[in-house]
């Protein structure tokens, strides 16, 4: 006798979910939506009750957390899942995680949890192991079964991004890890509590296996409390509507919203194939020495995608050509891919009445086995695989923008580039207190890309979280007192240019304040000198690169003591060092992720990130928009001239006659220095024939050529001899 409806086991129930969809093309085989059709008002009331319950759980529980990411940056989520694992409703927050829950429930069903360790009323389960569904170990899932008259009728789930995972680097988003053994505290599905309470032994794991015991234990209490609150509320809702209504209602929500999504694609897009491309780079060479010989190298990572908008309104994303798995921190599994990339789908078409997993029923993926997002090594490092998946969020924002543009719905375009950063930090204060933290403020507040009709807004969106929120700086400083923010502002000229330009990125300057015995910072970023996207939109430039500076041994303390001005962004830091006002013993500059760097009192941690790309030809940018840019200081007069061919008359106005003449010159220059495509093809072909690449690029091409699809394209494009190999 199983624990699910009609005495079925959990495994039978989960398997039936898949079979019914495969057989009928409808979620749970529902060809008719009886409850929706019979009384839509009651149905809506039912659905909104479920949503409200999730939001209530979130808002109540988050007050228990001390982690700034949960408290003020929205990095949490509370969900209701049906017994099969489909998320029916969720609070706002880290919405992508609804994609993972069906994988987690399938994992425990396949592992036979029903028999051992058993799934009883009041049992609490936990998992952050990517092998079983969570995207990476920073994202921790805690869940509780809901029983009604001894039948399993759902799960309540709490999820949040923790501050530190106990890996070889501080924080939750490491930039170095060679396997799961260096990823940190990674827990496969585990029963961690009973009678609606976590066991005491569970706290010890957080205390002993991570750096931030206080944050992590409180986060665990937050998740546990939230799921109990949600559990009780769901049972009240079942009492109100009746178990039969509830049981069927959950399924109808999924099927109804699957239909909404399919119809939305059909009504906004144009079917066809759309290509997207992104490159990443990982630098381990020289950082790991003899201990991990397979990891003592650098990787240029090839991340292509072909989005197929199929005639039936469903989407197939093909990742043939994706870089191979490796002994690095960048591997991920299908749930992680589905989870994070869904954040590119929410704003484009997946916005529905509630956040739910209907998306799973209309999106298919080909993620080749052996690639970094389908690793075959069971111990593959995944601590920051999600960071590398992030570039794939923009498959959907960018390709669907083209599809909507073609259809005439320009207002629905929303292109983006991968350009956010964040950091992990840890140290030992003067009194011996060990601590760790991290800031995702620059990841949770990024500019909008330019669209075909307007400039991107700055500080407008969060790619990995629909609830964009930079958080309150004061809270972050209270919790990470070594990081004093003395500059946080939009950076002039820092955006992808175009007829319409992307929103500017945000520059941050922090001074390290009384770090005590020890302090180290590791930054993760998206660009690595390769830019934020491999293709611009409609002739616009993709945005360029993150800037991360560690400035050591400065005279900042003296400048402050003397009441003198101080620099507030990376541009000023460079200028002031050049002028001699700011002195520094050494400066490290990176264009993306960095190794772990030790910092001293008075050192500066300076970043710039989060700009987005342009749309259209720069020489077609309207002069009135450039004047506005000049007035607000978003663009410098030099940039206006060099990039846009706009000459200023000294009063912030554009000299249109001189500008028209300059633009004509710039067009002529294009004519003079470009070659026809055939000539260009010959030149590029020669590079290919000579294999004249940097080692990292050559390795990338060799790796991508393992795939038939890429090899055919590469060999066909460059017409290389049959015996050409890399």
């Amino acid at each position, binding site marked *: 006798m199983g624990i699910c409806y009609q005495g079925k086991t959990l495994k039978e129930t989960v398997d039936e979910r898949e079979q019914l969809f495969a057989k009928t093309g409808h979620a749970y085989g529902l060809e008719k939506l009886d409850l929706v059709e019979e009384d839509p008002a009651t149905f809506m009331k039912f659905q909104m009750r479920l949503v409200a319950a999730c939001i209530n759980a979130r808002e109540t529980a988050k007050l228990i957390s001390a982690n700034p990411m949960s408290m003020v940056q929205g990095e949490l989520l509370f969900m209701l899942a049906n017994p099969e694992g489909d998320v029916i409703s969720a609070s706002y927050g880290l919405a992508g995680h609804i994609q993972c829950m069906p994988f987690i429930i399938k994992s425990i069903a396949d592992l036979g949890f029903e028999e051992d360790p058993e799934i009883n009323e009041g049992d609490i389960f936990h998992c952050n192991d990517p092998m079983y569904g969570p995207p990476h170990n920073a994202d921790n899932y805690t869940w509780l079964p809901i029983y009604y008259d001894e039948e399993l009728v759902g799960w309540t789930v709490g999820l949040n991004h923790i501050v530190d995972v106990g890996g070889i680097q501080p924080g939750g988003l490491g930039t170095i890890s060679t396997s799961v053994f260096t990823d940190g505290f990674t827990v496969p599905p585990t029963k961690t509590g009973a009678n609606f309470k976590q066991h005491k032994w569970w706290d010890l794991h957080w205390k002993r296996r991570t750096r931030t015991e206080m944050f992590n234990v409180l986060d665990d209490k937050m998740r546990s409390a939230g799921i109990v609150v949600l559990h009780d509320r769901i049972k009240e809702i079942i009492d109100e509507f009746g178990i039969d209504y509830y049981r069927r209602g959950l399924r109808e929500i999924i099927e109804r919203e699957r239909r909404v999504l399919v119809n939305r694609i059909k009504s906004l897009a144009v079917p066809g194939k759309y290509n997207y491309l992104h490159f990443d780079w990982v630098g381990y060479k020289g950082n790991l020495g003899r201990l991990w010989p397979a990891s003592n190298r650098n990787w240029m990572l090839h991340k292509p995608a072909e989005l197929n908008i199929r005639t039936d309104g469903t989407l197939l994303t093909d990742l043939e050509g994706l870089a191979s798995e490796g002994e690095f921190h960048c591997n991920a599994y299908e749930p992680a891919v589905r989870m994070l990339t869904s954040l590119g789908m929410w704003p484009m078409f997946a916005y529905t009445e509630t956040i739910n997993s209907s998306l799973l029923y209309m999106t298919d993926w080909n993620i080749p086995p052996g690639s970094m997002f389908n690793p075959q090594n069971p111990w593959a490092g995944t601590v920051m695989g999600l960071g590398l998946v992030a570039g794939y969020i923009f498959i959907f924002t960018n390709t669907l923008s083209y599809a909507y543009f073609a259809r005439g719905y320009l207002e629905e375009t929303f292109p983006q580039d991968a350009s956010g950063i964040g950091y992990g930090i840890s140290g030992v204060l003067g009194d011996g207190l060990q601590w760790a933290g991290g800031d995702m403020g620059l990841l949770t507040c990024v500019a909008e890309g330019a669209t075909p009709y307007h400039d991107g807004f700055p500080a407008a969106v969060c790619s990995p979280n629909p609830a964009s929120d930079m958080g309150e700086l004061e809270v972050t400083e209270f919790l990470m007192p070594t990081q004093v923010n003395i500059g946080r502002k939009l950076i002039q000229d820092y955006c992808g240019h175009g007829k319409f330009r992307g929103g500017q990125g945000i520059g941050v300057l922090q001074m390290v304040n009384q770090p005590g015995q020890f302090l180290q910072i590791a930054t993760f970023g998206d660009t690595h000198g390769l830019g934020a996207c491999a293709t611009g939109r409609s002739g616009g430039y993709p945005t360029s690169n993150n800037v991360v500076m560690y400035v050591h041994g400065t005279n900042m303390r003296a400048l402050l003591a003397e009441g003198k001005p101080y620099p507030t962004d990376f541009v000023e830091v460079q200028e002031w060092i050049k002028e001699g006002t700011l002195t520094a013993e050494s400066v490290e500059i990176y264009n993306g992720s960095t190794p772990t760097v030790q910092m001293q009192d008075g050192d500066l941690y300076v970043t710039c990130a989060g700009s987005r790309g342009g749309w259209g030809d720069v020489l077609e940018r309207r002069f009135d928009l450039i004047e506005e840019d000049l007035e607000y200081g978003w663009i410098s007069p030099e940039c206006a001239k060099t990039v846009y061919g706009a000459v200023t008359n000294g009063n912030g106005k554009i000299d249109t006659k001189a500008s028209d003449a300059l633009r004509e010159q710039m067009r002529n220059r294009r004519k003079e220095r470009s070659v026809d495509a055939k000539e260009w093809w010959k030149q590029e*072909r020669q590079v290919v024939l000579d294999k004249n690449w940097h080692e990292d690029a050559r390795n990338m091409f060799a790796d991508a050529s393992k795939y038939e699809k890429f090899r055919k394209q590469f060999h066909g*494009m460059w017409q290389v001899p049959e015996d050409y190999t890399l």
Partner: protein
Amino acid sequence: MERDDRFSKENLKRLVEGTLHWEEVKKAIRLSPKDSDRFWKYLEVLQEKVPWDDKILLRISDHLYIVAKDGGRITKCDCGHEFGDYRVNWKLGCQVYVRKTSEEIGEVVTIPEARHNIELVEMREFYCPGCYALLGVEVVPPGYPPVFEMIPDLDSFYREWMGQPLPDESPDWFQDKTLDKPAEWAKEG
């Protein structure tokens, strides 16, 4: 088809020109359901905008259109330049300029610290040979095959989604024929 003026042709024209007021754009974003005749209005607006008469089948970027011409379907710039069969990546019909040095990239990325790693990537610019408008930008390693951004399934779109099949339907239309071009170039030498 019945006209749906909840989003007017005039406003669409302004949206295409990039001059529609943000408040009006927001109304368009909020429009639910969307005006279902948008595509037909769009084609009207675009057809009035271009200086030639070939029938526009689809707009694929600011300047580029797939048009019906002499029994074929070709990519055409609004300036009138024709790139040939739309199934071949139009980038292979462009004038191309490659920014390889930091100085060259610096002309469009004016912040030195944010420039690309020129040991790994180059910046390609694809211009229309007719009007020299910048049609596409790629930041890729040298030797990376040009990205074909979009190959629409026009027949399915017009027949199944828009209910107005094209007169020259054929399964051959929805294919990528880009590799025919370098094969031709290789033969020519």
